[in-house]
């Protein structure tokens, strides 16, 4: 290879996002075609540092990914450290109040026997894993195969050439500007990376993915709906951990988010997963179509932790890590497609995993589809090697062949039913959701009202400690990466109608009222969850990418 620095800005395959989807694509592509230059970039400091999920993994896709490249992998210590244990008991609970917990397992088993969609909610046989650790491990596997995994490089834009129907490459973010945006003496303008194939695997609400969708004219049949997950990792006593067990996961509906008829109505629920080393992950997932102006996701988490069932396992424990992330829940109708061809991408650019929205809400899972999409992307590249602009079509066909389309289509309308009719009626209707026609649901941010969340916590949740435990950080002097479109909207309308909800919903406490006006006062606390971009009631916030290597540093989220 000619060793001119310029040459290194040209690659065969550029994957944006070192999560399960992107790394699966990289591994599979490198395995199929070792001669390809496969580069994965990620805005986090390391693969997995921005990855957060429950998680329970349906292992099929992972097995198909790794079996050919790492024979005997399930026996390796690393694999065992990632796939912690198989689920034996999936406790699906109904929490009517803060004391009682009723198991829904039998009900769901019955549903499964009847062939109702809800049966998929049971996860026995799947693996409990931390997605940050999974990504970290896949990153290592990829590197060992010769994939260039380069964290710390944040992409700012996709160079889409509409006339050619393909993208030339990706531009990285400018780095080294001062707070006012002026270049400092160490300013490094964003480099342009040219690539034949561009795989966008940025995760939920990806910056490039959304830009690409807009530039290339991709369309969603239904609105993308989001939920926000906030999660803590708690180190508990030997006794508590033994009592909980390594093979049990808890999915709880009801308290504190939803009490039919009389109480609050936020779609979502609580989770508890054992993560090894006496650590239990406890989290709340809340649909962002909630309508309470003062809803605070972590207050909900605090209430959940106070529930008698939960408390017995975590009382007296030590918080060791925390994190927050959005989940794309809109399902198959919200997957962006090329209006002409129906492909999930266009030309030589495709969308993978959460960036496409491949989360199955009946299973409450997307990880398996993320890996599956990576496999599909690799297969598509192999078939489109000489004709990169055929990538999107080939990829979409591969996804369909792999059964992703069938699975996703079965869960179609699930989330829309709830968004449209409320949790209680929605859940009932959603049983046959796939049979209902597609109906229109507005984006999450349009749902805000001046109603207050009816449940209060005795002491407000300590967001500063939460943020500290995410180990997030940004250079204090860089330009604020959260842009407010029109301050007048905040001042004249939002304050009066909703009191500045960004101050309460942002899990990292980024927004504060300064001089009475909600402002992104602490951008360096940002967890890159992008809830603000999707829940600001006036759609008045835009999340821009900060410098590379910043943001949270998750290790077991």
């Amino acid at each position: 290879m000619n060793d001119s620095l310029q040459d290194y800005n040209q690659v065969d395959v550029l994957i944006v996002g070192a999560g399960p989807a992107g790394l699966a694509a990289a591994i599979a592509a490198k395995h199929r075609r070792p001669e390809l230059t496969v580069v994965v970039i990620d805005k986090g400091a390391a693969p997995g540092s921005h990855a957060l999920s429950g998680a329970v993994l349906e292992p099929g896709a992972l097995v198909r990914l790794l079996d050919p490249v790492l024979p005997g992998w399930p026996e390796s210590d690393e694999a065992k450290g990632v796939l912690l244990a198989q689920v034996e008991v999936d406790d699906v609970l109904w929490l009517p109040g803060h004391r009682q917990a009723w198991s829904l397992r039998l009900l769901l088993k019955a549903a499964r026997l009847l062939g109702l969609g809800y049966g998929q909610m049971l996860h026995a046989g799947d693996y409990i894993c931390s997605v940050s650790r999974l990504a970290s491990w896949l990153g290592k596997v990829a590197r060992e195969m010769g994939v260039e995994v380069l964290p710390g490089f944040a992409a700012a834009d996709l160079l889409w050439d509409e006339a050619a129907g393909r993208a030339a490459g990706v531009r990285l973010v400018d780095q080294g500007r001062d707070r006012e945006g002026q270049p400092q003496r160490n300013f490094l303008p964003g480099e342009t990376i040219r690539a034949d194939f561009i795989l966008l695997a940025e995760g939920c609400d990806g910056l490039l993915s959304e830009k690409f969708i807009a530039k290339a004219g991709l369309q969603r049949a239904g609105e993308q709906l989001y939920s926000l997950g906030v999660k803590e990792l708690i180190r508990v006593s030997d006794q508590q951990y033994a009592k909980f067990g390594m093979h049990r996961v808890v999915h709880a509906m009801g308290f504190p988010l939803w009490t039919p008829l009389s109480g609050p109505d936020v779609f979502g629920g609580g989770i508890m997963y054992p993560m090894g080393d006496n650590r239990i992950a406890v989290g709340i997932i809340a649909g962002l179509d909630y309508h309470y102006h003062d809803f605070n996701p972590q207050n909900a988490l605090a209430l959940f932790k106070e529930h008698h069932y939960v408390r017995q396992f975590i009382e007296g424990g030590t918080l060791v890590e925390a994190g927050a992330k959005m989940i794309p829940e809109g399902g198959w109708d919200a997957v962006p497609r090329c209006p002409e061809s129906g492909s999930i991408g266009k030309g030589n650019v495709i969308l993978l995993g959460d960036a496409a929205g491949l989360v199955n809400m009946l299973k409450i899972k997307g990880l398996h589809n993320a890996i599956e999409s990576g496999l599909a992307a690799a297969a598509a590249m192999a078939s489109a090697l000489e004709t990169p602009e055929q990538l999107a079509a080939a990829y979409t066909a591969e996804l369909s062949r792999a059964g992703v389309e069938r699975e996703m289509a079965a869960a179609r309308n699930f989330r829309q039913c709830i968004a449209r009719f409320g949790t209680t009626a929605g859940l009932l209707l959603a049983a046959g959701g796939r049979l209902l026609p597609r109906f229109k649901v507005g984006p999450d941010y349009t749902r805000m009202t001046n109603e207050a969340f009816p449940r209060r916590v005795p002491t407000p949740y300590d967001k500063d400690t939460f943020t500290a435990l995410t180990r997030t950080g940004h250079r204090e002097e860089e330009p604020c990466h959260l842009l407010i479109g029109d301050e007048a909207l905040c001042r004249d309308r939002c304050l009066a109608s909703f009191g500045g909800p960004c101050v309460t919903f942002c899990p990292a406490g980024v927004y504060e009222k300064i001089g009475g006006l909600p402002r992104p006062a602490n951008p360096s606390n940002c967890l890159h969850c992008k809830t603000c971009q999707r829940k600001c009631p006036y759609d008045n916030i835009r999340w821009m990418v900060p410098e590379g290597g910043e943001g949270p540093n998750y290790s077991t989220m």
Partner: protein
Amino acid sequence: MSNYIVLVKQVPDVARITDNAFDPETGNLIRSRLASVINELDAQALAFAWRMKEISGDTEARIICLSMGPPMAAEVLRYGLSRGADAGVLLTDRALGGADTPATANPLAHAIKKITAEMLAGNEDYFVVAGMQSVDGDTAQVPPQIAEELGIGCIPYATEVEFIDGGFRFHHIISGGSQMVTARRRPTVITVAQYDYHLYASFAATRQAAHRELVQWNADDVKPTAMGGSGSKTRVIRVFPPPKTDRLGRQLHSVAELAGVLREALNKQASRGDEAPGGDPDYLLPARRSSWFDRSFEGATKECDDFAHLAVILAEQGITEPEQLTEEVKERVLAAKNLELSPKVAAKMLDGLQQRETAYQGEVWVMAEHEDGALNAATFELVGKARELADSLEVPVGVVLAGHGVRDLAPELIAAGADQVYLLEHPLLQEFDPLSYRKAVAELFAVHQPQILLYGATPQGRVLAPMVAYRTGCGLTADCTELTIRDISRLGQLAVMMQTRPALGGNIMATICSRNSPCQMATARPGVMQRRPTDPDRRGEIVVHPVELSEEDLGLEIIERAAVGGHKVDFACEVIVGGGKGLVSRDNFARLLEELTTVLAAKFQVKAGKGASRAAVEQGFVERAFQVGQTGTAVGPKVYLAVGISGAIQHMIGVAASGTIIAINADPAAPIFKQCDYYLVGRAEQVIPELIDTLNQ
């Protein structure tokens, strides 16, 4: 054309300590559980070198990164290559492991020679640029010792560089202020204390770096004259977790309460400082003890217990003097039925008991430091400590006083506890220059051979000490917080100085002893040791030592000495008000702190000073010389009042020696609240004027 050799070190990431990093049994930090990163100040050093190359317009200049460490340290060289370095050299060999600072500096210096010869075509016009210190060692000794080995100059604590009239001008921190200097000679070592324009990795260069071969050398390639554990002059005796904070962490609810606490702390503390240390002696020479076999002054409690047990058996056998310990007697003791020690260990202990001589002989010395005709507080604290050590050892205290026209300061030193003041006077010692000072001090040292030499861990002491230590072949321990005389009887070493210091960003403590070293040298943190009450009637002697120096012996040319804000920074105060980012603006900072310190000084009849957090300095609220903390100055006032300071660990280490810490912060979750004695939640602009009013009432 100048080239640049940048020293980069791979260190554990102490900024991100994972929850499993501490051993649950011992509480010690387990280093291998931390991620490895480039030492932050070395990253800044690379940026500094890159800046020098850029402003000099010298596109031909080469930047070569050099690292010594295990093979995985190649990572930090790739860090350099992805950010504008032209080449990377890794010095790696098992034989180089386990080294202290001189045994690290020596191989690095030899590697630098090899780089110059082989990679820079013998061009002797180069700068060695390094971070001032590493976060794991925190000693700041290696770069000055490299300069010493190479026989070249050293500009310590650099913060900025300019290129004027074809030459570089360096801004650097000195004790109590800053200077602008040029290097009188090249090559020169530059240590970077703070340069915040770190370089960003370029995508293309990162990829290229991954494909590049690094130059890799082993010990045989560079042929060091000292290396590894055997070439070291110190050894670590013990590593233990830092003591738990005994700060009260009590919340105050009103400004009136705050004023009350201030009043009480300043009054109470004032009386404590004057008390002479009484009670049991810190150390007694074995000859002074009731029995020669009394070993209650061992470095470790277990040793004391073991020797006490042995003493019982010796007493049972009627052995009272070391002369009685013949081979036959020893065998009898080892055969004693009630001996609970392994015979091998006991035999060693018996051998050790026959040692009559102390391990070191000579006086206990202190290197005095002065600014603008006045000795600094650290000097008096060291003299107090030296007096205590010397009394235990029954030897005189000597103080080295170097400068020009400084003889008048000698009586103060005698009154503070010195028996001899060694006067080094020369016009070229007027301003501190590492090269001239180290030469004069080393020459004096060679004549008198003291057993202990203490320096202040100040910007001056921390560059002078490593150079003198290297020149005289002595071990040196940096930034000690505790110095005691103890026996290591098992090794037959009597009356050695145990040097305890924090390491790894204050996460662990280590007790260190000198070895293969003619003298035990240490720098001590200002504010940690107690000064003794002045005794104007004390008698002492001034010993004038002739100094021969020429311009050739200087390394720096001083262009400008920054008078900080019209007057110099003085941290030797009873109360220091530290200001942070919470003060919001430069105006606030100046006005509120000035008013408060004035009132405090007037009301309590004390000296009151100003300090700042790193964040406040970065915001431009105040000059850098006011910075308190690990990269600034460590302080130890009776009361430290932190206003709008969040409480970063680096800052808190620097104020750990304070009597009472009081914090005011608007953020109820500010970490400082967990590390202080009293705190009040409130905004500085509100609290301070109220406090002033209350104090004035």
